[in-house]
């Protein structure tokens, strides 16, 4: 039972006295102004704090089991290692609050606001976070097993190494969130949004991502065994190095996916996604022309989807690239008096000098890195070439339209 009455608590607060270690369990403190109060290690089990003001209050290590905090304002409050098991924080405001290593098992946080809150290592197993706003929250290493995050906003949240296994993520928004190394096995995420989310090395085995939006998501090295992606959107998703045995991809929407390991893109057309994920489409081996070699007066043609890297010196050569072929002129590569044709992706780390204009015709993508140099004319692809230039590159270059456009 509480050792103080409500009025006594308010008197102490008004005198700025500490309530650390006080036993206030079961007390009715609803609507009270407790901003900045010191409740460290206090006993607040079952306490009614409905609509209380607890801005910047210190509840570190406090016990708030089954406390009622609906609508309470805990902005920037300190709740590290607090025990909030079974507590009701419906519609509470916890923006910027610190709940590192707090226990929120079975707690109700539906429609709560936790923007920018810290929940590193927090225990949220079976918690109800339906409709909560966790934008930019830091939840790395948090445990959210079997939790409910339906309709929650976790855009730009940090969830690396978090455990969301068997969690219900229906229609949640994880846009731009970081879920690297996160555990999502058997999670259910129908209609969830993972647009541009980073999920490298995440485990999604047995999870359901039906109708999920994974456009631009980075799933490199993720585990996708038996993951259900029916109706999902995967355009631009990065899938290098995934293990995807038993993955289900019926009716997915994907114009292309990125099968590149890092840096520039390696686009794989939609038709080949299934084959790639199911392991039937092997990324083509890179043809490599090593440093010190010289090739003169040659015409080389590389098939669609292949990968070529040149660290040699090519003189007076013509290189024809198939659709989607990656041509990398390495740091040691020099192409002098050469010509490159075709709808491939050209990356220049070395040197390129054209033989005659235009020296590069129709690339889908043209990138010159900080070490690269180009002297010549680039005739764009019919649908405009994607250009990128890193600071430090050297150019004496003309860009002209595709002849089909002129």
């Amino acid at each position, binding site marked *: 039972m509480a050792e103080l009455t409500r009025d006594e608590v308010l008197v102490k607060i008004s005198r700025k006295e500490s309530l650390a270690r006080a036993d206030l369990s079961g007390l009715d403190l609803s609507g009270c102004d407790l901003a900045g109060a010191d409740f460290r290690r206090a006993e607040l089990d079952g306490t009614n704090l409905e609509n209380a003001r607890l801005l910047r209050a210190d509840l570190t290590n406090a016990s708030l089991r089954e406390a009622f905090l609906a609508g309470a304002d805990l902005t920037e409050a300190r709740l590290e290692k607090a025990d909030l098991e079974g507590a009701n924080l419906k519609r509470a405001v916890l923006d910027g609050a610190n709940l590192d290593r707090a226990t929120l098992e079975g707690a109700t946080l539906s429609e709560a606001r936790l923007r920018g809150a810290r929940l590193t290592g927090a225990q949220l197993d079976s918690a109800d976070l339906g409709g909560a706003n966790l934008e930019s929250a830091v939840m790395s290493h948090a445990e959210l097993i079997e939790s409910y995050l339906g309709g929650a906003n976790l855009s730009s949240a940090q969830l690396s190494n978090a455990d969301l296994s068997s969690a219900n993520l229906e229609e949640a928004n994880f846009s731009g969130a970081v879920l690297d190394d996160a555990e999502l096995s058997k999670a259910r995420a129908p209609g969830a949004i993972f647009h541009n989310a980073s999920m490298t090395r995440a485990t999604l085995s047995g999870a359901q991502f039906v109708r999920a939006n994974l456009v631009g998501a980075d799933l490199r090295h993720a585990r996708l065994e038996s993951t259900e992606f029916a109706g999902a959107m995967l355009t631009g998703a990065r899938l290098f190095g995934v293990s995807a045995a038993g993955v289900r991809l019926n009716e997915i929407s994907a114009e292309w996916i990125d099968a590149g390991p890092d840096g520039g893109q390696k686009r794989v057309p939609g038709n080949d996604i299934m084959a790639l994920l199911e392991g039937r489409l092997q990324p083509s081996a890179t043809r490599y022309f090593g440093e010190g070699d010289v090739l003169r007066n040659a015409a080389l043609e590389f098939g669609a989807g292949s990968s070529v890297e040149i660290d040699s010196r090519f003189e007076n050569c013509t290189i024809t690239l198939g659709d989607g072929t990656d041509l990398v002129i390495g740091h040691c590569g020099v192409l002098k008096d050469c010509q490159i044709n075709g709808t491939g992706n050209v990356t220049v780390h070395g040197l390129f000098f054209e033989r005659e204009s235009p020296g590069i015709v129709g690339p889908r993508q043209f990138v010159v890195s900080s070490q690269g140099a180009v002297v010549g004319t680039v005739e764009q692809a019919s649908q405009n070439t994607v250009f990128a230039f890193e600071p430090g590159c050297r150019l*004496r270059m*003309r860009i002209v339209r595709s002849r089909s456009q002129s």
Partner: protein
Amino acid sequence: MDGPKGKQTVVEEGTHFRGSLTSTCPIVVNGRIEGDIDTPGLFVSSTGSVKGRVKVGEVQSQGELEGEFDAESVRLAGRIKDKTVLRAKVLEVQLATEGSKMQVIFGETELAIGETPTDDLEAQRAKRSKKPGRPSDAPPIPEGTGG
């Protein structure tokens, strides 16, 4: 786009300036400028456009550029119209997915960025350890490479 801090000259959206504009402050263009510009910094927003001869320290653009630009550094997004010449020590164009706001659409453009490359890789590597030259030192595009 990282806008300038401190004093700046703003040509707001809906404003069309035609003439010669010289400023010791950076110029932010949300509208349109046609003419000669001399400024330490030129920031063109997605609604802005600049046409003319520009002498500038830093250019950041998400809008439209057309004409002749001599700059120290250039960061581009948006659109580069036909018959545009860009001379700079440093150029940055980020790789962007199709349709994103960072994508650059080039018209008929000449780029003269950094030192003149030579095919002597070793000499270049040695030279790169020194400071790069000024944009005004950049020679014109070699003949026979007209577009």
